[in-house]
């Protein structure tokens, strides 16, 4: 078993599913011979042909709308939106059709679609290339939002997303596409959706995060451990629906909650997690909840992006704050 990066794991999952399910069709801008701007589909068109792995004209609303039509007629489209900042033209189709086709037709038609898109910043990209607007989609009923944090989870969760009978928005954290390699068995085994993953056990504070921010969070946890603070780190993985049981259970044990995400704070997914605990776990809280998030500003162009992204220092300080108040 080779050590592979997240992007390679994603390619591998695609290949597995293309091979085992003839109804799977990949589509997107530059995903064919070019293999995608991040190489997520490298070699797949060569291997599976230009109908199963399709380059599309340049139109995201079209991609999403095509997915609705293809899925309603029995295919399982897996679409790539080149960057999350370009998903906006697709929102109409995602909200008004894809995520509610099952509901609108009382189950007669459905949309087993996966929309994959790079998520977040930190790699010196041009304007509009560093968005992390998962909250917009988490608010939409009828679509799941998933974000892996390691190669293995990318492989297993992408398989799960493709096999799921409903639409899934699959967010790929660009900062860690090639961050660390991991052994990933190409066994076609999916990981479960709708549950989070425990990345590190702890007893003093629960830190919930997802995607690329797991890196800074785990670093913070290590740093905290050195000071004698035992942090439990939870990777949300499925951002919507949230596995609130697991979070509440952890907070019940630790008594403290810090939420870390890259997106803007206002009405971010962190707010929902805080709200769930303030409703159902209030009496477990020994200190105010802390959110460490992007600011309520436009993600700055890259010279300042590391001033925007939550840092290890901010996470550590937020945990400290839960011990002060």
């Amino acid at each position, binding site marked *: 078993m080779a050590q592979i990066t997240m992007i390679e794991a994603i390619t591998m999952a695609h290949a597995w599913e293309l091979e085992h399910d003839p109804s799977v*069709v990949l589509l997107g801008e530059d995903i064919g011979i070019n293999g995608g701007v991040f190489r997520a589909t490298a070699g797949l068109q060569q291997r599976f042909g230009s*109908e*199963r792995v399709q380059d*599309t*004209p340049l*139109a995201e*609303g*079209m991609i*999403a*709308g*095509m*997915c*609705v*039509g*293809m*899925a*309603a*007629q*029995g*295919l399982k*489209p897996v679409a790539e939106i080149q960057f999350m900042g370009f998903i906006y*033209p697709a929102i*109409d*189709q995602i909200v*008004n*059709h894809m995520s509610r*086709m*099952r*509901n*609108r*037709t*009382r*189950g*007669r*038609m*459905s949309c087993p679609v996966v929309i994959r898109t790079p998520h977040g910043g930190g790699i010196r990209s041009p304007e509009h290339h560093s968005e992390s607007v998962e909250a917009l989609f988490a608010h939409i*009923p*009828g679509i*799941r939002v998933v974000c892996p944090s390691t190669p293995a989870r990318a492989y297993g969760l992408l398989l799960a997303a493709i096999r*799921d*009978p*409903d639409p899934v928005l699959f967010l790929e954290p660009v900062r860690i596409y090639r961050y660390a390699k991991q052994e990933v068995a190409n066994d076609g085994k999916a990981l479960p959706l*709708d549950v989070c993953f425990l990345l590190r056990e702890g007893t003093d504070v629960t830190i919930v995060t997802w995607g690329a921010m797991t890196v800074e969070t785990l670093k913070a946890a290590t740093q905290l451990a050195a000071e004698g603070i035992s942090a439990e780190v939870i990777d949300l993985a499925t951002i919507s*629906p*949230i596995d*609130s*049981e697991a979070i509440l259970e952890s907070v019940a044990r630790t008594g403290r909650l810090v939420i870390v995400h890259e997106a803007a704070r206002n009405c971010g997914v962190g707010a929902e997690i805080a709200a769930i605990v303030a409703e159902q776990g209030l009496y477990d809280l020994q200190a105010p909840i802390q959110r460490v998030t992007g600011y309520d500003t436009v993600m700055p162009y890259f010279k300042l992006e590391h001033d925007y992204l939550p840092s290890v220092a901010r996470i550590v300080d937020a945990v400290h704050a839960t011990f002060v108040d």
Partner: protein
Amino acid sequence: MKAVAEFKIHYVQMLDPSGQPVADLPAFAHSRDELVKMYRMMVLARTFDTKAVNLQRTGKLGTYPSCLGHEATHVGAGAALRPEDSFAPVYREIGTQYWRGVRMVETLTYWGGDERGNDFSGPKHDFPWSVPIASQTLHAAGAAMAFKIRREPRCALAYVGDGGTSEGAFYEAINLAGARKLPVVFLVVNNRWAISVPIEQQTACATLAQKAIAAGIPGVQVDGNDIIAVRDTLEQALARGRRGEGPTVVEALTYRLSDHTTADDATRYRQEAEVKAAWKIEPLIRTRAFMAATIGWTDADEQLLKTECAQQVEAAVQEFLAMPKQSSDSMFDYVFANQPVRLTVQKALARRYSGKGSH
């Protein structure tokens, strides 16, 4: 300057407003059965339509968009489609749907505010009503892509209104369909109005068929009040699609004789004279005249047909009125196939308050 590309848009008419043939007619126009079947469906659609507007007035339906004046286009398209083709409606096209097997009670259920109206007992592969203007054009293109990938000799048909041709989604759909030679037909119903906005305000184009040129595909204009021309034109376009020769844009010229919907009052923005003139060229008169001249359709036939249609509509209305409401559970049961815990919890909560309204 060198001309590097040239285009022409043609106009097809077979019956003039008085029912006189003005072109060679296709075979089906010589068949009594086919003519009666088409005319019957037009009369049924109009009978249903009148009834539905009345049901709205008495609070039994919500907002309802009439199909008055569009019957030749809608039924002509229905007749041109094969059962295995896939059809993406907007919100008025009952004439097409009924031909394909959708039941009238389903239309009433839908406009009565109940999602079950989209669960057609008829063609399971037809798309539900689509209120977000022009969005359905992409669904038809997607369906066509599925047919193409699976090598099925089927064609998709999407409707879109004159107003709908201003939405980017429409152009994205026709451009993609052209680029990938998809088996799909885009039927632009130019009824001259998008609510209160007349076609002249919508675009500087002389025809909507010429929008096809922007996709590099054929576009043709047809008299949308002439069911023979509509059916024939669409049969050809659909056949092209099924043969793998690519998409077509068909513009059907017709007129919205009604208000936009029951929530609209068209007298606020359009002239009585225009509507009066449009009544002179509406589709039923000329079909009936043609049938009288060619297959001896009589007043008695007409009366019988009208009675039958009225009875059928009435039966549908009764079935609709007797339908029990969905339970509050139904809000939750179709959001996902695999219901998340959160929804199960909320479903129980909703049950507790169900029927208590918002007060």
